[in-house]
């Protein structure tokens, strides 16, 4: 059992891998070293593919054979507990597709776009090396651990391996993370739809379309997902096309023209109803549509980048690595590593890698492909988002992502400020871009989604030109991002509601019942109230919201990743495989250092929530009003918001430290023990089970 079977590498494959390594090194050198002249995106694509192949073949296999010791002869939970429903041995490509569809979301598309303010190089390097040494390691190891433990969830494994208290602490952390995720993602939608009648109209149309699909699936043609999704897609495309007419007709446009505050309230109300209504009516059909559209759009983006082969217009490294950037504040370290979370390492994946995926894996030997390989695919999506953002004119990029507090609200003022930063742009270019995409303004549309949409629209337009096509592609991209973000919001609110009921059940037992209407409505209200508070705060934030909330999201997501990697580290020691402790240990320490440093700067540094609260307090005492507050009540609101954010950051830091302490304690105990102490399920040979079953 402890022997490791490795085949020696043949001469032919040695040559192939040497060639891949050389190609990768050359492409990476071009990307990293060429200065002054634009680099083509294809170099980044080629470098990424080479790095991913090498990481998968060598580091992934090293983890498989030495750290996790995956054993193809061992029966996995899907075989042992086969029930034909949740636990089903499934073809590895099907599991891979399912796993990727579950981990891919808006995160890897948004983070890299924001990080592009530092230039394309820092983001590219962090995505490539972050995924190989941290993100894919986390996903793969959590999957590997779960497969050995009856497909248990992350929370369950934490309780078992680190103790019951650690499990409870992690549960609270998870809930807080979830609320921040929902608020930030909803804010991305708000930012994309503010004063955009076209976008708002087509996103609003998804509600009746989903209802129609729900009724169709329930009563007319039960379970015909593909059929109904095609109908839904056609209707969606129709709504985008008709949106142009809505935007062009002032009487119609006025019904769909909202400011950020109104949109925030609409989303809060929507989130409540979507998660209280029966799932088949709204939530599920929207989920189907967004799942397929997501995969389709990722493919479309890949095709667009491949055929358009754009030059990167953003510099390799911009002056904003010094922490003065307009998109998010803070220096390269630690804020780059917080801003790009999902594409490099995402704590959220540990929930999925210990959720449905381990129940489907038909063999331990396939865990590397699904866990490690799935995350590499996700990183590739992040790289594509970075390329799309970096291929935009930097002036356009900054005008879209900088808050109006810095660049003002007119194209003339914005162009003047951005040109001063060294990214020369004329007001005319900004107005023309807005006109091309069918909007009245592109200024301060922060949040990544609109920037990515413009990038995608330009790439697609360059391979499929046509009158007004760019506006169509832009609104298509906005719609698809809004669609899957809203699906996350509905489903997340439901999950949050169950978590709240579980926590409430610890205090008062009857609240736990998920069937009770009172419990349902109460917990849903609490859940919507929690994320809605942060969403509303983002909508009225002086710096545009994303600037403030994205770091909080990044800190929370990396905190969860740190916890998952701590679990992997502890189990490695508990299995008495101490010599490999650094494999999960180094990324765990790195993430702890990043989250704690970023957290500390957000609590006490010059860019902190505390300082922001102080500035507003001082102004208030001096009887002044600071923008965007228009009265004393709004000033006080901003002060409270900043204090809440500072407290939450402090709680996240405390959580990381507590989990770190639990981990160190568990590790010391395990290190001293002379025998393995991990809670693995006993090995049952696959051959014995299969022969019995047949």
């Amino acid at each position, binding site marked *: 059992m402890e022997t490791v079977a490795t085949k020696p590498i043949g001469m032919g494959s040695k040559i192939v891998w040497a060639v891949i390594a050389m190609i990768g090194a050359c492409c990476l050198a071009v990307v990293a070293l060429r200065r002054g002249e634009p680099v083509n995106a294809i170099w980044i694509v080629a470098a990424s593919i080479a790095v991913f192949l090498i990481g998968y073949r060598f580091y992934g296999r090293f983890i498989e054979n030495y750290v996790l010791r995956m054993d193809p002869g061992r029966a996995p939970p899907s075989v042992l507990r086969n029930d034909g*429903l949740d636990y089903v041995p*499934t073809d590895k490509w099907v599991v891979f597709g399912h796993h990727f569809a*579950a981990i891919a979301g808006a995160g890897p598309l948004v983070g890299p776009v924001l990080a592009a303010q530092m230039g394309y190089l820092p983001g590219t390097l962090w995505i490539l090396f972050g995924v190989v040494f941290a993100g894919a390691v986390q996903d793969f190891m959590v999957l590997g651990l779960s497969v050995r433990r009856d497909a248990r*969830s992350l929370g369950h494994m934490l309780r078992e391996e680190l103790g019951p208290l650690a499990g409870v602490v992690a549960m609270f952390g998870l809930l807080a993370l979830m609320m921040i995720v929902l608020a930030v993602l909803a804010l991305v939608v708000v930012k994309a739809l503010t004063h955009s009648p076209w976008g708002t109209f087509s996103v609003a149309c998804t509600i009746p379309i989903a209802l129609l699909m729900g009724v169709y699936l329930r009563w007319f043609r039960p379970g015909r997902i593909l059929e109904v999704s095609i109908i839904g897609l056609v209707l969606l495309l129709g709504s985008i096309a008709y949106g142009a007419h809505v935007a062009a007709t002032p009487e119609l446009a006025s019904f769909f023209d909202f400011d950020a505050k109104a949109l925030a309230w609409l989303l809060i109300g929507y989130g409540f109803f979507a998660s209280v209504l029966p*799932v088949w009516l709204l939530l*599920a059909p929207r989920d189907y549509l967004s799942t397929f559209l997501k995969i389709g759009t990722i493919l479309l983006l890949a095709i667009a980048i491949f055929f358009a082969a754009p030059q990167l217009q953003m510099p390799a490294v911009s002056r904003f690595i010094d922490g003065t950037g307009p998109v998010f504040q803070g220096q390269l370290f630690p804020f780059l590593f917080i801003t790009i979370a999902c594409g490099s390492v995402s704590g959220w994946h540990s929930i*999925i890698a210990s*959720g449905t995926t381990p129940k489907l894996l038909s063999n331990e030997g396939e865990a590397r492909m699904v866990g490690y390989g799935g995350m590499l695919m996700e990183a590739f999506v992040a790289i594509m988002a970075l390329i799309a953002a970096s291929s935009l004119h930097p002036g356009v990029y900054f005008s879209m992502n900088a808050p109006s507090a810095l660049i003002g609200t007119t194209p003339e003022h914005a162009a003047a400020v951005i040109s001063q930063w060294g990214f020369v742009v004329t007001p005319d270019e900004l107005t023309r871009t807005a006109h091309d995409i069918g909007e009245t303004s592109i200024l301060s549309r922060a949040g990544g989604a609109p920037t990515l949409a413009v990038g995608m629209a330009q790439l697609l337009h360059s391979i499929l030109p046509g009158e007004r096509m760019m506006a169509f592609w832009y609104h298509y991209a906005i719609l698809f991002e809004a669609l899957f973000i809203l699906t996350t919001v509905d*489903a*997340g609110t439901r999950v949050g509601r169950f978590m709240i009921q579980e926590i409430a059940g610890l205090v008062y037992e009857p609240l736990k019942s998920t069937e009770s209407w009172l419990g349902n409505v109460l917990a849903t209200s609490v859940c919507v109230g929690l994320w809605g508070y942060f969403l509303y705060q983002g909508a009225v934030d002086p710096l545009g919201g994303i600037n403030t909330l994205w770091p909080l999201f990044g800190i929370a997501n990396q905190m969860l990743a740190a916890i998952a990697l701590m679990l992997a580290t502890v189990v490695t020691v508990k299995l008495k495989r101490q010599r490999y402790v650094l494999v999960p240990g180094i990324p765990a320490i790195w993430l702890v250092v990043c989250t704690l440093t970023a957290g500390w700067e957000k609590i006490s540094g010059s860019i902190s929530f505390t300082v922001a609260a102080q500035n507003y307090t001082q102004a208030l005492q001096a009887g002044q009003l600071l923008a965007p507050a228009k009265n004393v009540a709004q000033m006080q609101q901003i002060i409270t918001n900043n204090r809440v954010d500072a407290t939450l950051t402090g709680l996240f830091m405390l959580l990381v430290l507590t989990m770190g302490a639990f981990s160190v304690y568990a590790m010391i105990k395990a290190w001293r023990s002379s025998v393995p102490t991990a809670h693995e399920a006993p090995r049952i040979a696959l051959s014995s089970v299969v022969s019995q079953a047949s």
Partner: protein
Amino acid sequence: MNMTLSKLWHRLVQTARLSCGVPDYDVYVAHLRTHHPDRKIPTYAEFFRERQTARYKGTGGRCC
């Protein structure tokens, strides 16, 4: 050739359905026949509805 194409299509449909939380119906029916011959076999519509409800029971199934 035809065989491989239809197999590929089947896999694609299976992946797409699984991504929406609906496992393979045929596999479930086969499982019931082998292991629980006494139980009633649900129609695809019944099976679909049961799975649809089960998917949103609150174990975070998707990422940001």
